[in-house]
């Protein structure tokens, strides 16, 4: 069965990335911050960018869930629990990233005893806790009845669900109404908290008067709007490809896509306003940051990542007469937005540091440094094995995915996208093995230019140049893979989509619903969907 192969490939792929990532994290823990390419001039880099990225995804998903439970937009109900669960996973990932970034990780818990009421960061930490509590209680209340129903199932699903019911047995309708009332109250509490979570994350940057690029009142708002765009896009993508394919599926995906497109457009307007005011004002420090962002060594993060992939292409796909009506395309557009916002986050954190605070202060004393870590020989062997396994698994998965669409164009597009992703990982791996460093570059010639994005060795003497070290990349990919694995597990085990009470489900839903979506409608398997969908699949 082909589907089974690709499920194996999917999990292998994620496990390889996660394992390599965990190894990288172990190196980071034991050898300290010296494994990064950060300097005293550029003290925050990839990890902080991913931190605000994931917090944004989380807050965005959560805010979209409140539209359903607080503002009663019943239409979006099918994505409600997915929204809350992805908010939880993304928040956890974000917190892991900020933990990785601490110089003294072992002291992270002291933020609870060493209070400092003047620090935005300190307030954020408390916001995150409150937010986590609200999020989880809401999710639990929503799933409670389905958890109880599922706990009758044999095997892992039943066990997990049984544990998660926390002894609750009440299946009555009054209890459900009670739950919904609580959810509404929690959601109402959640709105300001979620806005605080991400607006506050924006404020961490916005209150820094030393950096004019951050120091604007619009900054926290941009954070919230782009959070809504990225969180909404994530949900749209998930629902488009993995949601129950019932009669409202396409129309809901299209509606979600339009909403996400709207948030993205608003985000662009805000950004345009910042740029206009900044350039008009022409304060040297301010303009220099924009220049570094647009025309510096990483111009493509802005033009290609943020604008083309993250905004123009998805907006065209979403608001286009033809593709805008097909859930597959809207889902793909949303995936692009989710990717593109990474560029937005990178450009929030890094460019301001590349501009010296005072002319000459960056070169007065040699501040440039780059990753140093001890590298035992057997890592190399292990890593080579990992690359091979990774490539095999990725190949299998890409083959499977590229056979799903019916139209040849789409198939080729899927293949190309898969290849690009694989190539990216391969380059990261090569860089890890030392290919493309000045030494090997001088032997091999040209390729030194290629992996620039994945390691900063090439301009190691330029203190205002930062490009994440291989370990930074690998550990980030590891955390992301772990988050995706956690999410997939939750998807398999928890009732994240509303169940139909009359049909007790027997097998867990596969994460590969989309296979059937293109060809034969929804394949039965979990019996959760309405009769309509069942009829379709038979």
């Amino acid at each position, binding site marked *: 069965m082909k589907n089974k192969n690709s499920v194996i490939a999917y999990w292998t792929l994620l496990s390889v990335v996660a394992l390599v990532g965990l190894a990288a994290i172990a190196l980071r823990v034991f050898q300290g911050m010296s494994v990064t390419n950060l300097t005293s001039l550029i003290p925050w880099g990839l990890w902080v960018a991913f931190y605000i990225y994931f917090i944004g995804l989380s807050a965005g998903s959560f805010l979209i869930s409140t539209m359903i439970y607080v503002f009663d937009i019943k239409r979006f109900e099918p994505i409600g629990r997915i929204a809350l669960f992805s908010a939880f996973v993304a928040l956890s990932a974000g917190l892991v990233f900020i933990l990785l970034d601490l110089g003294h990780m072992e002291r992270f818990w002291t933020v609870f005893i060493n209070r400092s009421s003047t*620090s935005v960061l300190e307030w954020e930490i408390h916001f995150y806790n409150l937010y986590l509590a609200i999020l989880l209680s809401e999710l639990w209340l929503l799933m409670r009845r389905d958890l109880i129903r599922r706990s009758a199932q044999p095997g892992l699903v039943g066990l997990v669900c049984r544990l998660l019911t926390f002894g609750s047995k009440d299946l009555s309708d009054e209890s459900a109404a009670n739950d919904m009332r609580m959810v509404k109250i929690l959601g109402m509490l959640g709105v300001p908290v979620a806005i605080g979570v991400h607006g506050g994350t924006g404020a961490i940057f916005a209150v820094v*008067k*030393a950096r004019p690029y951050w120091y604007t009142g619009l900054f926290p708002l941009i954070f919230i709007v782009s959070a809504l765009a990225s969180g909404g896009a994530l949900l749209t993508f998930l629902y488009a490809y993995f949601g129950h394919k019932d009669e409202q599926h396409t129309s809901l995906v299209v509606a979600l896509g339009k909403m996400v497109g709207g948030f993205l457009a608003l985000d662009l307007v805000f950004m345009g306003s910042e740029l206009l005011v900044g350039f008009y004002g022409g304060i040297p420090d301010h303009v220099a940051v924009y220049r570094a962002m647009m025309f510096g060594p990483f111009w493509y993060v802005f033009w290609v990542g943020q604008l083309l992939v993250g905004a123009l292409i998805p907006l065209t796909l979403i608001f286009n007469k033809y593709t805008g009506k097909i859930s597959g395309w809207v889902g793909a557009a949303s995936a692009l937005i989710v990717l593109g916002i990474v560029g937005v986050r990178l450009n929030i954190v890094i460019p301001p540091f590349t501009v010296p605070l*005072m002319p000459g202060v960056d070169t007065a004393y040699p501040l440039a440094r780059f990753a140093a870590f001890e590298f035992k020989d057997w890592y190399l062997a292990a890593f080579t094995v990992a690359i091979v396994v990774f490539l095999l698994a990725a190949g299998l998965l890409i083959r499977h995915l590229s056979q799903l669409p019916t139209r040849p164009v789409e198939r080729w597009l899927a293949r190309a996208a898969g290849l690009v992703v694989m190539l990216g990982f391969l380059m990261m791996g090569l860089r890890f093995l030392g290919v493309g460093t000045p030494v090997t570059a001088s032997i091999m010639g040209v390729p030194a230019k290629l992996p620039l994005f994945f390691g900063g060795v090439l301009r190691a003497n330029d203190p205002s140049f930062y490009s994440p070290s291989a370990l930074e990349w690998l550990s980030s990919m590891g955390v992301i893979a772990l988050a995706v694995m956690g999410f997939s597990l939750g998807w398999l085990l928890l009732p994240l989509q509303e169940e139909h009470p009359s049909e007790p489900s027997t097998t867990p839903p596969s994460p590969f619903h989309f296979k059937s979506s293109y060809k034969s409608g929804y394949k039965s398997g979990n019996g959760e969907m309405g009769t309509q969908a069942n009829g379709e699949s038979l």
Partner: protein
Amino acid sequence: MTKKRYGMAIDLRRCVGCEACTVACKQENHTPPGVAYAKVIKEEVGEFPHVRRHFLPVLCNHCENPPCVPVCPVGATWKREEDGIVVIDYDICIGCRYCMTACPYGARYFDFGDNYNQPQNEFEGRSSPEYGEDRPRQAGSSPIGNVRKCTFCLHRVARGEQPACVLTCMPRARIFGDLNDPESEIARLVAERRGFRLKEELGTEPNVFYLE
């Protein structure tokens, strides 16, 4: 006894850009690569034959309103009540580097744990006297993984000595003292000579004055 307000005046007409202060500071505080509490910004103005080199020694300004202090999530850095020196407690600092982004002068450095020699030599491994504490430099323990900055040589001042950079400065371009004491040399110089401070528009009120 009234509160002290330690500050420094740097006479730009005297500074010759020899960087003896940079070296003295590194020796005194055993700072690793990439950390230099005192450094000299060098700038070339004009075109040959009318060229001039300008020097601007910079260090932590021990601002009156230090923007680096309120941002710290654990309160690990503060301005001392008794003498106005901005300090960091290495045992509390979690190494988030928020304060580095907030300092408008680039006066804070992160100790990544790098060494000049591999493995580190005896001098590098020896304890830095900062804050009068005994902290041998070992991987994984403070100050590695912390943010570090100029302390106005707190440990020397406590012994009644001058900061290392002041003592070493050959043309006596650096004058250290209590700005609250109107009789002190620094207070008189700041009052009498035309001077400026860095980025005054930010309202940080630096305590390092530059005399022209």
